[in-house]
């Protein structure tokens, strides 16, 4: 029992931090709370990162519900890092927009615990609990701006489709339970290894695929994304565009390669086609957007496609899994940063984020504009940024698997994406500010958060080896033999 608790110390740390935040929000005065709550949240998350190991040989806890392997520790750190960034970019926005800060931080932290639980899961039950614990706070985050109807719309849409997809997912889990008589991945793996692919298993796989595709925003299960991302408060958008997606891929890897790995069925072609459709669809629709938030929303769908391409190459082994993990990490930092940059524009309460509003951003806020450009260049995949390296790591296994057409599709998609990402840079750097453009309000913590993320984006693009080796080790459990 003691060892069980020790194994999930980071999760406990985040939970306690969230509770402390709620408590101090009630006790502290407003001005005090404003100053201390973000610091408390960051301190708790840093403590969480360092209270667990970074690599481990793996151990099973809580009667097989939880597994702590390097895969879990990799995602654990990733989620904590994303939460730290999400906390740092929020305070100025929350203050000016009168969004209750304590609730925001606590909700982000609860969602983070859920995401961490997904990565730790060794059983369908703990997986499902993790998914719900992660997504329900995100619905709340989306709707947190109570008096804004777009925010309400975002929350409601996200909630309805999220609940719907959870139901499908759970239904699929129940079929798996029916087949295997157990909810543990290991038990399911034994049964599918014995029985092979039967009609019943196929139904279960289809249901689980649909459910998880909703969570990861794979086309054609992506429709909730633009509205939810657009309406939510900008720092919340930044968080929900990355953490749930990373968690969805953690779940996909756990279920498909942990529980269903022994199946002899080769779904790589199916996944490759889905990946190609998702990246192309996301990019093509993003081209047509004039609202930058919606554009980034569609582009995040395209990034799901890139990650899925690496998943499709799973037969290659460790390098494919490592590519997924590396990309998820890179995407998390750069996409969170890109969304958060938009917070400069709608700090003052405008709805924000049309291309025209970005005109002359580099004159009005040089630092923020530089960070924004770094994130956009990284999302495009131009060196020396982590986004470029991440794409290289994906193209490698895809080619190795023999999907030359998919590798070429990725390259051509990057050109499509370059068009709309660089068009944003055009507005930021090459147009003069419109007369009467509102002054950009100072937002010190936002600048700190974005600075950290931008530096990380470039540094990881120049020295990616440590992160890659860690990802390779973390992908170990899913190497197909």
């Amino acid at each position, binding site marked *: 029992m003691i060892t069980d608790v020790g194994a999930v110390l980071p999760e406990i740390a985040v939970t306690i931090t969230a509770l402390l935040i709620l408590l101090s929000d009630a006790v502290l005065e407003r001005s005090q709370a404003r100053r201390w709550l973000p610091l408390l949240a960051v301190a708790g998350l840093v403590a969480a990162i360092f209270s667990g190991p970074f690599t481990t040989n793996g151990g099973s806890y809580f009667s097989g519900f939880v597994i702590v392997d390097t895969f879990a520790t990799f995602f654990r750190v990733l989620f904590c890092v994303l939460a730290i960034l999400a906390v740092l970019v929020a305070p100025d926005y929350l203050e000016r927009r009168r969004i209750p800060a304590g609730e925001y931080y606590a909700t982000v932290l609860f969602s983070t615990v859920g995401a961490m639980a997904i990565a730790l899961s060794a059983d369908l039950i703990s997986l499902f609990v993790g998914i719900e614990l992660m997504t329900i706070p995100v619905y709340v985050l989306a709707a947190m701006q109570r008096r804004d109807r777009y925010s309400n719309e975002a929350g409601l849409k996200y909630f309805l489709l999220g609940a719907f997809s959870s139901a499908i997912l759970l239904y699929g889990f129940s079929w798996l339970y029916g087949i295997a008589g157990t909810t543990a991945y290991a038990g399911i793996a034994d049964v599918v290894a014995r029985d092979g692919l039967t009609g019943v298993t196929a139904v279960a796989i289809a249901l689980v695929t649909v459910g998880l595709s909703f969570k990861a925003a794979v086309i054609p299960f992506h429709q909730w994304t633009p509205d939810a991302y657009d309406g939510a408060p900008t720092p919340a958008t930044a968080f929900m565009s990355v953490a749930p997606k990373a968690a969805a891929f953690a779940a996909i890897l756990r279920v498909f390669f942990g529980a269903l790995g022994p199946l002899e069925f080769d779904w790589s072609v199916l996944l490759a086609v889905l990946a190609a459709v998702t990246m192309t669809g996301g990019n093509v629709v993003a081209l047509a957007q004039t609202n930058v938030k919606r554009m980034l929303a569609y582009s995040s769908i395209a990034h799901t496609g890139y990650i899925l391409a690496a998943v499709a190459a799973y037969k290659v082994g460790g390098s494919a899994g490592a590519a997924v993990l590396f990309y998820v990490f890179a995407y998390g930092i750069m996409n969170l940063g890109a969304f958060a940059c938009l917070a400069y524009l709608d700090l003052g309460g405008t709805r924000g984020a049309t291309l025209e509003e970005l005109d002359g951003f580099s004159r009005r806020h040089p630092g923020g504009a530089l960070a924004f450009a770094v994130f956009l260049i990284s999302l495009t995949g131009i060196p020396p940024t982590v986004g470029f390296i991440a794409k290289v790591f994906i193209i*490698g296994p895809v*080619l190795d698997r023999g999907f030359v057409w998919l590798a*070429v599709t990725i390259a051509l998609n990057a050109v499509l994406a*370059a068009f709309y990402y660089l*068009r944003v840079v055009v507005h930021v750097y*090459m147009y003069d500010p419109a007369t009467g453009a509102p002054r950009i309000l100072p937002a010190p913590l936002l600048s700190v958060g974005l600075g950290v993320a931008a530096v990380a984006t470039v540094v990881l693009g120049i020295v*990616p080896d440590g992160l890659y*080796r860690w990802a*390779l080790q973390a992908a170990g459990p899913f190497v197909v033999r």
Partner: protein
Amino acid sequence: MSPFGLDHVLTLLIVIPLAGLVPLLFFIRDDRAVKQVAIVTTFAELILSIVMLSQFHIGEAGYQLHEKVPWIPGLGVSYELGVDGLSVLLVPMTTLLTFISVLYSSGGAIKTRVGEFMAAFLLLEVGMVGVFLALDLFLFYVFFELMLVPMYLIIGIWGGTRRVYATLKFVLFTLAGSLLMLVAIIAVYLASGDPGSRTLSLPELIAGRARFSADFQFWVFLAFGLAFAIKMPMVPFHTWLPDAHVEAPTAGSIVLAGVLLKAGGYGFLRFALPLFPFGTQAWLPVLILLSVVAILYGAVVSVVQKDLKKLVAYSSVAHMGFVTLGIFVLNAQGAVGAVLQMVNHGFVTGALFLFVGIQYEKTHRRQIADLGGLANRWPLYTTFFGVFVLASLGLPGLSGFVGEFLVLLGTFKFNPATGPGGLFWGPLAAIGVILAAVYLLWMFQRVMFGTVREAYRSLPDLSPLEVACAVPLLLLTVLLGIFPQAAIAYIEPSLARIIALATDASFVVLK
């Protein structure tokens, strides 16, 4: 230890512009300080590249001043640098043109956001120098792309009225080619060996190139070739070039024509030819055809240009046609001529863009019809400009002649097993030389002679700064024309080796 006490000269060449960025960003608001930092940095870089030239051993074909450190072992990538005869002149050419561009821009050509301009230029220099030094395919790609973003900003922020259109076109064309090359680079990595022994180091890849099947080479050469053909640019991928040149600020045009275009020709010689001899043979007929088309088409289109800057831009298409022709006739004369032509084009076309820019700064006109009679007012300008125009059309005694002559010599010796040979292509290409004389001299006549407009009478001749920018280019143009052997001695052994690798008959492909 070298005579100058400098060991890692090549790394220093990459570090210096980066180091210059630090004080530059510190003073970014102070235009004067920023200009000084940029001038000092690019001058130091120029001096260092001359030191590198002095450390180079003439007569050796292999890579010199070699450096290698593992970078991303997970991808077989190392930080590997080296120079040989192919790159040893291109690097000082780059640093000189960068220095001149920065010097000229600091004289008042760039008025807004000077700090950002200089920062972009230093970053651009890192990419340009790195491209010519990298011996690892991945590292080369990184530098190749690193040139992209600064140039995108330089055209897009400090360019002319249609700058946004031009810069997006430039970036998207370039990216479309280079991203496919990235896929090909990764394919080369996967084909380079069994897991665990894979590499992207050029020397190792050349040693193990027998692993690349003929079929594989066909496709990979296509991907590399497309990237380089767009960069050069070869017809029909050249449409971004006139737009980019016309809209770019003068300094941007100088390095775009002088250096960035060379990355394409350099890439062919450095990577595509020695790594994929079968691919080269397979695509040879197409590439020769496109080269000759570029020579003739570029020249014919130049004749009818009304815009002075566009004329120089299209003449670049024709000149680059000579470079690719020289490369793909696959003999030593052609290849040496191609490299000489690249160096010469860097100085001469760089100078032409400089003078077109100087003229535009004074008259604010680029239409040839609006100009005329300037020779009466600007004797100094006319002399300099005249020499560069003559060098560009290939007058013997100036630098343009030797390169084009060697390329034509190589072309006449070209003797393929099937299809038309040198006796067919040679005369066609020679027509391009004649056409060059037509459009350049006709342009010079219309711009410089005739009656001068009233509005231009009071415009001053070259300023001391402008003379200082032009003199080094003039000296090099004359020197290279009179003593071409000095340059050829650097170039020849390495190019002979590259051509031998590309035409090795004993080479057997393993499946």
